């Protein structure tokens, strides 16, 4: 089956503005968008530039805007798109460096602001810091993130306000704030609960819809909002009549991304 690929092209040294270039690829069987981009690069036009590495939906390099949705190129079968033409562009809202390659510096600066590592000031126990399955279940879904940027790049608030931390960084904050072994809740809440944090989220759900790993970003941000509020009101450690933990609907934590089809663990 011949499929037309409209590929976003921009060379900062040659082009005044970006343009789209059309290539035709003979697609068969289970070929993914990344396979097709490789075909274009290897056999038709070596100048087409994009990032990829694992081609297994685990490194997060190949997030792109494919037929109007942010997806991983290596995880999107062309046949599943059911289209005679496939349009491939860089992740929206990120500065473009060349063709499909975007500048990740702002994205990772926001991630770093959330201190994306376990902090625990208490002396380590003899063996390991243990966590029960129940405690782990609160963060299981958030640990699936592969930092592909599809969520933050689909968020209209991020498009308008480059300062907003965005769903990826906030899910990272969530992942450590709700980790029973971590003790730096306050520091993270100072960032995540600021004016450029949780309060900018208007529950538009684009980030959850477009996450190729099924991370429930919007729900995580709502849980963070409740947590930030209770911390600020001084209810830390108090046994509450209601639950601040994420409220996932039955079966939601295993939801399957319609394009990628990757089932996440419960």
């Amino acid at each position, binding site marked *: 089956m011949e499929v037309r690929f409209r590929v976003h092209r921009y060379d*900062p040294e040659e082009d005044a503005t970006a343009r789209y270039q059309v290539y035709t690829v003979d697609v068969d069987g289970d070929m993914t968008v990344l396979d097709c981009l490789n075909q274009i690069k290897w056999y038709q036009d070596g100048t087409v530039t994009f990032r990829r590495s694992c081609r297994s939906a685990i490194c997060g390099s190949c997030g792109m805007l494919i037929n109007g949705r942010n997806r991983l190129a290596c995880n999107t079968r062309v046949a599943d798109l059911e289209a005679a033409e496939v349009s491939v562009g860089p992740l929206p809202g990120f500065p473009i460096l060349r063709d499909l390659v975007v500048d990740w510096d702002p994205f990772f600066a926001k991630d770093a602001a959330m201190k994306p590592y376990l902090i625990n000031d208490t002396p380590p126990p003899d063996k390991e810091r243990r966590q029960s399955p129940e405690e782990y279940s609160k963060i299981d879904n958030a640990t699936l993130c592969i930092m592909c940027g599809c969520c933050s790049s689909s968020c209209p608030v991020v498009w308008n*306000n480059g300062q*907003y931390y965005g769903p990826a960084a906030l899910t990272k904050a969530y992942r450590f704030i709700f980790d029973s072994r971590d003790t730096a809740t306050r520091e993270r809440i100072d960032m995540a609960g600021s004016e*450029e944090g949780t*309060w900018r989220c*208007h529950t538009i759900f684009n980030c959850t819809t477009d996450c190729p790993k099924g991370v429930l970003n919007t729900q995580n941000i709502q849980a963070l909002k409740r947590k930030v509020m209770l911390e*600020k009101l001084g209810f830390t450690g108090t046994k509450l009549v209601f639950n601040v933990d994420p409220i996932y609907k039955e079966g939601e934590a295993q939801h399957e991304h319609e394009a990628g089809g990757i089932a996440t663990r419960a």
Partner: protein
Amino acid sequence: MERVVGSVTAQPQPVRVAPKTGTYSWLLMRLTAYGLIVFLTVHMIFNHYLDLRTGNKLTFELVNRRFYAYPVIYAINDIGLLTCTLFHGLNGVRNVIYDLVTNPAARRVLTILVMLIGLYFLYDGSLTLLALAQMQNSVGS
């Protein structure tokens, strides 16, 4: 090197530590929403619905009679409604400002402006309602 930005307008900006405000306006947004449900229900029953007992059509005279009967409750309810509506609506405007404007000084100035608009309407509306209630009270007694 000049950077081309995609179909949308985000510009790379260094991460800055934003003010830690926002929590209370989020909480009050929820509380005023509950307030709106209560005050609006009372207001609608008082001002806009049929005479439930007799099924009579709503008339100016009927509303007036209710008003004479309960001027204080009426004023308290409508001042509550006005407060919740103003906070809820104008906090929405503030949220839009914070989404679209990133300059901290501009945010502050616009927030103060929105607050002044809210306070003016709260003052003006409350005075009118209180004056009405007082009038009804003195007429009623």
